[in-house]
């Protein structure tokens, strides 16, 4: 289980990334954030976000049109 959950279902680019970044800013180092999204573009975007910022993408999955990402706050 992630430490925190962020629901950005229904939101489109760039809101999932912006909301996730805002949330990560409030979290302790190494804490984990689960993000729930419906934007298919978020798959590539969260990968790029994590590669660029140095945060760790622990998980990326899809279930019934809902994408779930788990990011560890490492940057």
């Amino acid at each position, binding site marked *: 289980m992630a430490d925190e959950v962020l629901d950005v279902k*229904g*939101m*489109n*680019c*760039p*809101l999932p*990334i*912006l909301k996730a*970044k*805002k949330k990560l*800013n409030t979290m302790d180092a190494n804490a984990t954030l689960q993000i729930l999204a419906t*934007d298919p573009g978020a798959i590539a975007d969260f990968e*790029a*976000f994590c590669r*660029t*910022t*140095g945060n760790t993408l622990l998980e990326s999955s899809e279930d019934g049109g809902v994408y779930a990402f788990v990011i560890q706050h490492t*940057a």
Partner: protein
Amino acid sequence: MSSEQNAKSMSIIVTKGALDQAYPPFILATTAAAMGLDVTMFFTFYGLSLLKKDLNLKVSTLGNPAMEMPMMGGHMAMPNVLAAIPGAGALTTVMMKNLIKKNGVASIEELREMTVEAEVKIIACQMTLDLFDYKPEDLIDGPILGGAATYIEVATKSDINLFI
């Protein structure tokens, strides 16, 4: 929000002020800032109107021959000539705002607020203020007033420079 470990930087010259044309600069600026870049936006000519306190943005079909709107399962072309019909601009603006809402896309007001929150550096073009008779108090708080040289100095130090 800027540069925690990523010291890269980006600048954007914003020259257009229609509702649809306002999206790319604000989306790229907020996202780059979220990804740790130092971002500067230089608002000049019609782009400067995006800094006005009260935004009243519109979409025009004029000069935008590729525009088509989703309608009843298909797409309706929005030819240039439509712009000559009274009310067509208002209609396309309403259609665009409905699409924005329906698709969970942020409003420009929301993106602009996030731009300011992310500490994106904003330069308002002094010459454009003079040219179109705007006053600094017509604009949101925060912009630096400057000209081409102010922007060029930033651009020489930026990894990415965009003209939109």
